[in-house]
C-alpha cells in the first residue's frame, strides 16, 4: 500500500467523519467548522487526482468565501446555542432511515456494476492543470463562461433587492 492509497483512506475517513459531525452537531458554528474540514478533505482528494486548479479553487471559493459567508450570517443572527427545538423524535429517525435506505439502494445497485479495470488515475495526467483547463475554457466553453458572468450579475442584483429594508 503506497503513500497514495494511505492518503486516500485518511482523506476519505476524514471527509466522512466530518460530514457526519456537520449533521449531528448541536451548535451551528461547529457545523460550519466541520463543513470546512469536509471541504479541505475534498480538496486533498482533488490534489491526489492531480486536479490542482479545482483543488485550489475549492479551497478559495468554498472553504474561504462561502463558509465565511455562512459564518457571518450565523454571527449576525446570534443563535449560538441550541435554538433548535427537538419536538419530534420520530421525524429524525425517519430522516436517518430514509437517507440510509437511499444509500443502501444505490450501493446495492452499483455493487454489481462491471467497473473492473476502470482506474481513476492518480498523481499523473495534466488535464487538471491551469494551462489546459484555461485553453479549453476560453476556446470551447467561452459562451457558458460569459453567461455565468451574467448569472453573477443577476445574483448580485437579486441579493441587493432581497436584502433591502423596505
Amino acid at each position, binding site marked *: 500500500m503506497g503513500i497514495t492509497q494511505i492518503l486516500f483512506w485518511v482523506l476519505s475517513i476524514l471527509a466522512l467523519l466530518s460530514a457526519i459531525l*456537520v449533521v449531528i452537531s448541536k451548535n451551528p458554528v461547529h457545523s460550519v467548522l466541520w463543513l470546512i474540514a469536509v471541504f479541505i478533505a475534498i480538496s486533498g482528494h482533488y490534489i491526489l487526482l492531480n486536479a490542482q486548479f479545482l483543488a485550489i479553487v475549492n479551497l478559495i471559493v468554498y472553504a474561504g468565501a462561502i463558509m465565511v459567508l455562512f459564518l457571518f450570517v450565523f454571527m449576525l443572527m446570534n443563535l449560538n446555542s441550541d435554538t433548535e427545538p427537538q419536538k419530534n423524535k420520530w421525524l429524525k429517525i425517519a*430522516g436517518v432511515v430514509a437517507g440510509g435506505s437511499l444509500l443502501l439502494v444505490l450501493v446495492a445497485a452499483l455493487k454489481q456494476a462491471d467497473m473492473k479495470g476502470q482506474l*481513476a488515475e492518480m498523481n499523473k495526467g495534466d488535464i487538471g492543470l491551469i494551462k489546459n483547463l484555461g485553453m479549453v475554457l476560453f476556446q470551447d466553453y467561452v459562451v457558458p463562461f460569459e453567461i455565468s458572468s451574467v448569472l453573477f450579475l443577476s445574483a448580485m442584483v437579486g441579493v441587493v433587492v432581497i436584502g433591502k429594508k423596505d
Partner: protein
Amino acid sequence: MPINYYIFLALALFCIGVAGVLTRRNAIIIFMCIELMLNAVNLLLVAFSKMHQHALAVTNPNAGIDGQLFVFFIMVVAAAEVSVGLAIIVMMYRNTHSIDVNFLNRLKH
C-alpha cells in the same frame, strides 16, 4: 485507485447530506447539507474525468477535461446560489425572528 472507491465515497457523502436535509430544522444547516451534496457530486465528476483520461489518453490527450470544467461551472453556480439563499434566509429571520423551517408552513395558507 479503482473507480468503485470514489463512487462509494461520493454516495456516502451524498446520503449523509440527504439525511441532514431530512433531519435538521435549522434552515442554514439544511443549506450546508445541500452544499455537502454538491461537493459529493463534484468529487465524483473529477474522479470520472480522471477515469476517462486514463482510458482514452492514447487517442485524445484532452479526454476527460470536460468533467473538470463542469465542476468549475458547478462551483460558479453554487456561489451565486449561496448568496441568494442566504439573503432569503436573512430576510426570513428578519420577518419571523427564527430560522426554523417549520415556521414557514404558513406559506400554505
